[in-house]
């Protein structure tokens, strides 16, 4: 983070005539006015649609408020103690962490492998980017329609391919042991292009001279990848992993659309639980409390990130 400048830039030559103190304070008053005037539009939205909901959500989590507006009296921390004893809440949280783990690993590793391969000087660069990145431009609903259709037990492409290999059919979205993996496959297909592009950009920023020096020393391709590319990609990888974890924790769309959290709650994520507590259970207060528990988890991870990056740079 760069720090704000409070004095005039030192590089500027000193003005021939020193401004009188009155002129200076006039200028700083004008700067105050201008600064806040330029900030005002963003600030207005920021206060209204971010700060205010954060506050009203916190207040709501201390009430028994329902979607119909009834029961808005204070009940203290009752929602929180109920949530901590709610096995469905824990299960949704567990599902979310499981999804985060099994989606982050391939979304980082495969993206890196793809970027490294494409960066080997392959022809038709635009074609690879087009293929791997274009799914990222699809709405979650489109992705879910595509994959639900391919996962169809009788008419789906996946079971057809398995049958050709002599493997018995799989109940992709209806088997509690498989459903989350099916969601992860769709998610990897959908979003890998994003991490792929970030890795590709980072790889192209590594100076060629490093590789030249290494190949003069007789280092082969693998050696160059592990001792030049990978270390150089360290900071990028840390950022991609953190962003991916934070993105995966927020998973809702594709799961809700493909399985509605089923079978039997096996894929229900914490965001879906928040959504359902509020909009199908009509319990806004309880839902707000779970939102804050989820936010607490995100904050913990963010703090861990700060801690890790500090330690690395220290």
């Amino acid at each position, binding site marked *: 983070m760069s720090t704000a400048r409070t004095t005039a830039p030192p590089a500027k030559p000193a003005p021939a005539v020193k401004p009188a103190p009155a002129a200076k304070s006039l200028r700083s008053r004008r700067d105050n006015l201008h600064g806040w005037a330029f900030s005002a539009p963003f600030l207005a939205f920021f206060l209204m649609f971010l700060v205010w909901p954060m506050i009203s959500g916190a207040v709501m989590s201390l009430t028994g408020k329902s979607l119909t507006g009834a029961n808005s009296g204070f009940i203290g921390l009752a929602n929180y103690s109920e949530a901590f004893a709610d096995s469905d809440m824990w299960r949704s949280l567990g599902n979310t962490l499981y999804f985060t783990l099994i989606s982050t690993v391939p979304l980082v590793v495969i993206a890196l492998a793809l970027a490294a391969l494409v960066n080997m000087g392959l022809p038709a660069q635009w074609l690879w980017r087009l293929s791997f990145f274009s799914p990222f431009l699809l709405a979650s609903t489109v992705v879910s329609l595509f994959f639900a259709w391919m996962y169809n037990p009788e*008419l789906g492409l996946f079971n057809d391919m398995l049958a050709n290999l002599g493997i018995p059919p799989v109940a992709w979205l209806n088997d509690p042991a498989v459903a989350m993996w099916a969601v992860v496959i769709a998610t990897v297909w959908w979003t890998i292009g994003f991490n792929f592009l970030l890795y590709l950009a980072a790889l192209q920023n590594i100076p060629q001279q490093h590789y030249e020096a290494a190949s003069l020393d007789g280092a082969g391709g693998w050696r160059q990848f592990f001792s030049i590319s990978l270390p150089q990609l360290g900071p990028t990888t840390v950022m991609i992993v953190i962003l991916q974890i934070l993105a995966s924790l927020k998973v809702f*769309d594709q799961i809700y659309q493909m399985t509605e959290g089923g079978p039997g709650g096996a894929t229900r994520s914490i965001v879906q639980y928040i959504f359902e507590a509020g909009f199908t259970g009509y319990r806004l207060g309880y839902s707000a409390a779970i939102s804050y528990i989820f936010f607490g988890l995100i904050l913990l991870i963010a703090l861990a990130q700060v801690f890790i990056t500090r330690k690395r740079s220290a």
Partner: protein
Amino acid sequence: MATTTLSKPALQPKGYAETVANRRAKTPLSRILATVVVSVLAVAWLVPFAWATVTALKSETDAASTPISWIPASGFTFDAFAKVLQSGNIPTWTLNSLFTSAAITAITLVISASVAYAISRIDFRGKRMLMGVIVASIIIPPPVLIIPLFQQMQSLNLIDTYWALILPQVIHSPMVFVLKKFFDQIPRELEEAALMDGAGRLRIFTTIVLPLSRPILAAVAIFVFIGAWNNFLWPFIATNESSLLTLPVGLQTIKSAYGIQYAQNMASALLAALPLIVVFLFFQRQIIRGVATTGLAGT
């Protein structure tokens, strides 16, 4: 992006091109292997599109018959597309998505660029705190806000209006940070001269800073637009009326409505996918560069 090294030949040592050529010529086998692997994966990545297209071009009977086949028994037909376009609301939803995403992008650009300019250039009291608060807010996940935002929109009587879709989606704190970093790099001398000539802040901002910032503004616009176009959770909550739905939310209602019309499902999905894919084909370079420059913005 791909041409970073090529566009700065002066920085490369002599014989650079030759060395690269040598390096590449030396390992033709590994490059051929890489090309094969990447090609296989690229084809695999295109399968969902291809299968959806083939299904959409079948009759419903062929789409639902076993064993499944890439070539339908009764030939290809545009029936599914025609039916979806006649009976469905896809054109309306596309316009809704276009309008709300464009409005979100425009408002986001205006308010983010002006606050970023103030923080980058004007010495005003409280700006460090302001920047600190904006950066800290990056950590707030949007799903945490859905319950209180719904409540707020309900009490403002905005549920089922375009306002409810647009207003809560224009705060993109990471983009403020990205823009501020870009503005920081623009030489101050340009503005100092204009200030001396008596130009106001607003004029300097609109006539000097913004034109110089076109690439970053485009990158931010692309990023925000794609996000808004594809956003699901908030529009799903904020609208119920069919004529106000955005494409992603509308598709979800189609899915529940024609559960077993496979060809029509795929035709709808493809029609929904089409606009951004076409835009991508035209602006591939800008989009890819935009994602690469703003992608790590949350950091």
